């Protein structure tokens, strides 16, 4: 089996049982089957010949996918139970296997393969392909992100997602992108836990404040895919009456893992990497600041800020984060905001005095970047607005 046409014939012959079934059960007409064979033969020759491209494989796979879809539609319409249900996807998998073997360096083809396996719900194939792709392209962050994202979204498997991210961060040390995404994933996890506890009414702190509000809560009661739970089913005083052993009685929110130790650890190991600079630290800060639901957010932000002030004491980014820190987690319309803004204002003054002359323009730019979006909002208090405007003028 040396020549192209020999090989093509070999692969074409393997599809004969499927075609025979098409003819026997009258799923497709004879003319249609003939055209399939012709088309397949064309694709096989193209794919097996010298100088075939990854796109050729992708086109072949797409054609097979479409044929399979058509077969499914016909079968369901004609109420035919097909024996070779799996032959179609199996052929497509085989095409992708051959394609990725011939062009192992082509990341687009790998991604096509992964997407096909995922949509086809071929978990084993998906995992095998993913392992191969990751082994061949360990420094491509996209594959690690893809792996982590789908093991989290599809399986809800945080441990697997974490292990992918940790392996990825070992390889991707050229820049901070994957590191930031990993820290973000951990923050999402913490935010989800916070949300879950809120729905179950487990948070004693929130309980008093949000007692009436939760009942008329719009986001979750109306949401179709959330079962509305009575919020007071598990009150802390009720829990207290039940006799349980010491370990179980401990509040899990006191453990370091749920108090932001993991994002901080990620940040700490990122600081030791060669890519680390003020810009990266600021990116971490900005990313963390988005997660206002996380209870330990202020601790995490304080930790980032402390390390920035240690390493880059005189930098514009450090001062920008330092100024922003009091207000960054608060909503503009909340009652704590004005006093936090007062702290921020004094910090801005301090920053303006101590930043180097060279960085003054950069600091002004950074300040404008966070103040202007707040000013653009309609619902802010007039007093707050005046103070923010003054702050902008002073920083110039």
């Amino acid at each position, binding site marked *: 089996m040396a020549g192209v046409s020999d090989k093509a014939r070999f692969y074409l012959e393997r599809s004969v049982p499927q075609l025979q079934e098409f003819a026997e059960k009258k799923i497709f007409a004879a003319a249609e089957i003939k055209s399939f064979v012709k088309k397949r033969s064309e694709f096989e020759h193209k794919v097996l010949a010298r100088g075939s491209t990854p796109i050729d494989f992708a086109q072949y796979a797409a054609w097979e996918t479409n044929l399979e879809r058509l077969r499914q539609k016909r079968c369901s319409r004609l109420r035919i139970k097909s024996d070779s249900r799996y032959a179609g996807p199996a052929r497509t998998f085989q095409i992708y296997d051959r394609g990725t073997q011939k062009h192992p360096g082509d990341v*687009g083809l790998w991604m096509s393969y992964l997407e096909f396996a995922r949509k086809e719900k071929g978990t084993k194939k998906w995992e095998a392909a993913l392992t191969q792709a990751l082994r061949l392209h360990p420094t491509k962050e996209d594959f690690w992100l893809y792996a982590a994202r789908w093991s989290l979204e599809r399986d809800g498997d945080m441990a697997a997602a974490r292990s992918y991210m940790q392996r990825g961060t070992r390889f991707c040390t050229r820049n901070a992108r994957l590191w930031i995404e990993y820290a973000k994933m951990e923050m999402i996890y913490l935010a989800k836990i916070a949300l879950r506890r809120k729905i179950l009414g487990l948070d004693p702190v929130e309980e008093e404040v949000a007692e009436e509000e939760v009942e008329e809560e719009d986001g979750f009661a109306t949401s179709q895919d959330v079962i509305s739970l009575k919020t007071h089913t598990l009150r802390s005083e009720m829990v207290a009456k039940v006799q349980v052993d010491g370990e179980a009685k401990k509040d899990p929110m006191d453990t370091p893992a749920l108090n932001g130790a993991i994002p901080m650890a990620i940040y700490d190991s990122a600081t030791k990497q060669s890519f680390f600079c003020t810009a990266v630290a600021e990116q971490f800060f900005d990313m963390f600041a988005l997660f206002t639901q996380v209870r330990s957010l202020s601790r995490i932000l304080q930790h980032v800020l402390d390390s920035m002030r240690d390493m880059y004491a005189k930098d514009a980014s450090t001062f920008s984060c330092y100024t922003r820190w009091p207000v960054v987690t608060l909503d503009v319309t909340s009652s704590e905001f004005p006093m936090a803004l007062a702290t921020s204002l004094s910090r801005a003054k301090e920053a303006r005095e101590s930043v180097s002359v060279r960085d003054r323009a950069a600091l002004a730019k950074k300040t404008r970047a966070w103040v202007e979006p707040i000013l653009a909002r309609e619902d802010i208090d007039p007093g707050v607005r005046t103070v923010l405007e003054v702050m902008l003028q002073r920083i110039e």
Partner: protein
Amino acid sequence: MAGQDYSDDQLLQLLKDAEGRLIAVKKTKDVTTQSLASLQNSINKSSTEKPITSYINPLSKIAQVDPAYLVTEEQRKQANRARVVQDPVAVKINDAKIKVATAGSQWYNLPRTNLTPELKRDLQLLHMRGVLDPKRHYKKEGSKPKIPEFSQVGTIIEGPTEFFSGRLSNKDRKRTFVEEVMNTEKMSSRFKNKYGEIQSAKTSGKKAHYKALKAKRSGVLKG
């Protein structure tokens, strides 16, 4: 400027007033749950500007390779470029001009080889320099001597410190390499001797050898 109109105390007062107003307003929405909707539910799909994507277009109803991938970058570039039509006569003239030119400023404008019979002999000699001295070995070259496209002949002028080491005496100096080699041969006659050696070895056992043998025999008989 307006910024200078407010003192720090005034600003603080403004903020205090604002706080009072905001506390008075009964909040209808819970901030945390509201912002939850805006929470990015997932990590980013890609961290780079140019993400790795599947060739199959996810948006189209049928499985289809994204048409953007069907034409390669190079093909697209070529297609987008204006086609240049050239006058063949002008091209010929231009080519001739280029041929006359030197090796370029990067090569100190080395001129094209002016192949005189002397230079040709010299180049042949250089190619066969391996036979000149049995003690000296050179890297192999191809069997056909190649004539360089650009070349120039020059004379090395020795420095004053090299009077005894790096100098040819006036007697030994000739115009070309070939003449120098001929002169050396005249003095040493190495090749002539070598020729004799080979000849005597080759002719041994033939006519001349037999004659010498006969002469010897007759000599013996006489004696």
